[in-house]
């Protein structure tokens, strides 16, 4: 009973973590950018989705759709206002682009969060469940919504896999993450590829945002937390490795759930953090990291 509870509960939350992290790791893999405004992007999607759904009574699905759209828009803004100017800047030494992108997206993230505070207050909000009601699964009373969210996450991740491994555009992404110069020599404009990857990122982050809003609820206060957790999961899995991030998401998700069930709800986040520290020390490139 307890086992099956942990199993089901952990599965859903991990799937959500995974979805949130995949986009994050994708950008890093392809363009080497760590987007510390990640939480902000998810937040915008979640809040817009909630706002539309509850304010205009559009129902959760249209709300979600618009939320994802908002997430996409925010991803573009992040890229065009912060990331690209830094990448193209002549005054910023190439060796220091990393710290500038980190600081830049950090600031941008703060601006997003404060802006959201201003528009929607920092009250936590939740979207009306897309799939109300509960089902009995392995003797556990589980909200249908929770299950469907896990399903959606995996469907989307599956689609992403197809996109990357089965389409021409996907092949270009893959190639770019392995050897951008080689791709240029074959006549592909990297700028287009970056735009593509940021679009994918926007959709993924947006979706993760609205799902979070409908599953656990969000508050603009969470923005930092969301970024941090995506960051840790991605590094734990190995920067730039999509499959790594997914595994890491499940490791973290289950670790947290098990802690909450078996040890104490108060200690929930701690074992995962300790694990992260441990991994950093024994295997800095992460569980599935290349090089």
């Amino acid at each position, binding site marked *: 009973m307890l086992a099956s*509870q942990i199993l089901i*509960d952990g599965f859903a*939350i991990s799937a959500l973590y995974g979805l949130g992290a995949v986009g994050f790791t994708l950008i890093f893999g392809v363009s080497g950018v760590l987007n510390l405004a990640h939480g902000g992007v998810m937040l915008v999607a979640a809040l817009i989705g909630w706002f539309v759904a*509850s304010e205009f009574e559009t129902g959760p699905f249209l709300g979600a759709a618009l939320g994802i759209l908002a997430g996409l828009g925010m991803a573009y803004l992040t890229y065009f206002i912060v990331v690209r100017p830094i990448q193209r800047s002549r005054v910023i030494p190439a060796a220091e682009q990393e710290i500038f992108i980190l600081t830049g997206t950090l600031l941008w993230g703060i601006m997003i969060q404060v802006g959201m*505070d*201003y528009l929607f*207050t*920092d*009250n*936590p*909000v*939740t*979207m*009306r*469940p897309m799939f*109300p009601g*509960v089902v009995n699964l392995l003797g556990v*009373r*589980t*909200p249908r*919504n*929770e299950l469907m969210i896990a399903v959606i996450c995996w469907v989307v991740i599956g689609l992403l896999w197809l996109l990357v491994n089965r389409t021409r555009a996907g092949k270009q992404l893959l190639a770019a993450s392995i050897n951008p110069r080689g791709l240029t020599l074959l006549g592909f404009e990297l700028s287009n590829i970056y735009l593509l990857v940021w679009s994918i990122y926007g959709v993924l982050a947006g979706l993760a945002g609205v799902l979070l809003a409908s599953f*656990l*609820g969000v*508050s*603009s206060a*969470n923005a930092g*937390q969301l970024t941090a957790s995506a960051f840790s999961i991605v590094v734990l899995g190995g920067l730039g490795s999509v499959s790594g991030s997914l595994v890491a998401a499940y490791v973290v998700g289950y670790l*947290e*759930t098990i802690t*909450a*069930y078996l040890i104490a*709800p*108060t*200690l*929930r*986040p701690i074992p995962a953090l300790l694990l992260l520290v441990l991994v950093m020390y024994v295997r800095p490139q992460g569980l599935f990291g290349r090089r």
Partner: protein
Amino acid sequence: MSHPSSARQALLCATILTATLGFNAAVDFGTAQAAEPIKIGVISEEAAVAGASISRAAQMAADEINAAGGVNGSKIEIVAYDDHSSAADAVRAFQRAVNQDHVKAVIVSYISEVVLAVEPWAARLHMPTITPGAASNDISKRVHDDYAQYKYMFHGWLTSAFIAQSICDAAHDNLVDKLHMKTTVVMSEDAAWTTPLDARYLQCLPKAGLTVLDHIRFNPDTTDFTPIFNQIEAKKPDVIITGISHVGVQPTVQWHDQQVPIPMAGQSSQATTSTFWKDTNGATEGVITASAASPGVALSPSTIPFTEAYTKKFGASPSYDGYTSYDEVHYIVDAIKRAGSTDADKMVDALEKTDYVGTVGRVQFYGKDDEFTHAMKYGKGFVTGVEIQWQNGKQVCIWPADKCEAKLTFPSFAKLPQ
């Protein structure tokens, strides 16, 4: 060093100096303009519903007083500061209020951490300071322990202990007597304000007739409450008594989504705001929480007029600390009148003698030698708070019995003892 650089440095320090000077002058000017009215500082976070209620309600009170001709000829001016609910920020705002804008009293925040950070400064800068919403016992405990220094701090809302007490009293009248509930599980966020709350819960719930089967504290960062609810359900209690404020909507929403068959009562701070229904998409149906006052319930003659005026003006009813902050402006002014001066110590003496019937009931403060010095008196005839239950989109008052008579209703999935 080469010349161009040092020239630039000269420019640099020049800019800094002028900047600071100009800034300095600017604000000085600002204050010189408005020396005349009596200023009251309000420090809260506009982005939070509970925070916004504080400043709005205070402004309403000031407007009323000014409309009535102000106090001793001078008008009341509310100076609002946004502290983003950060202690550091609040301290700087407090300094600005006192040293720059020369306010005569400060109404500060609903968050214990912020209030506790400001308290030493109230003592240091001799500034009468009142919190409309923080609950931690330590606020008044400090005053008790070091009266001479901390006497400037007043606790304008019930302390955790009394909140727990009122919840126990309500539980006895409603849950036990009416619904014959016998057992409960206490579920609180792991925060400072809940420590005394839980302590009192564990004392008074059994006295009220509810055996406490389990006591669960969870991390305020928790987003997924499934484990906690499952743990509670395993204990098969008749009701869950909550102590939640920071975590917000998640427990309520997940309680509803997972259809946990156990009613929730207790303290759920966000559930006291009228927007909570929208924030949770109605998941809060049937949830019971303690509050300062409730729409449409005449705790005193002034309750209903204020609630209606506020709702009319801002489109939503005030959250619990809106009521208290509205009252506070009134009895601060009252104290100034009685003291016949805005001298800090005279005001403190006057405030201690406060006996004012406000929107939340009759306000008096405990004295120097009571356990909770400068905290609101709790009990019949004073402030008891109310219990409200969310019933199809409305907050209805269910306690105290002499003030309101609504029936309790619970969502279909909640199982009541037969």
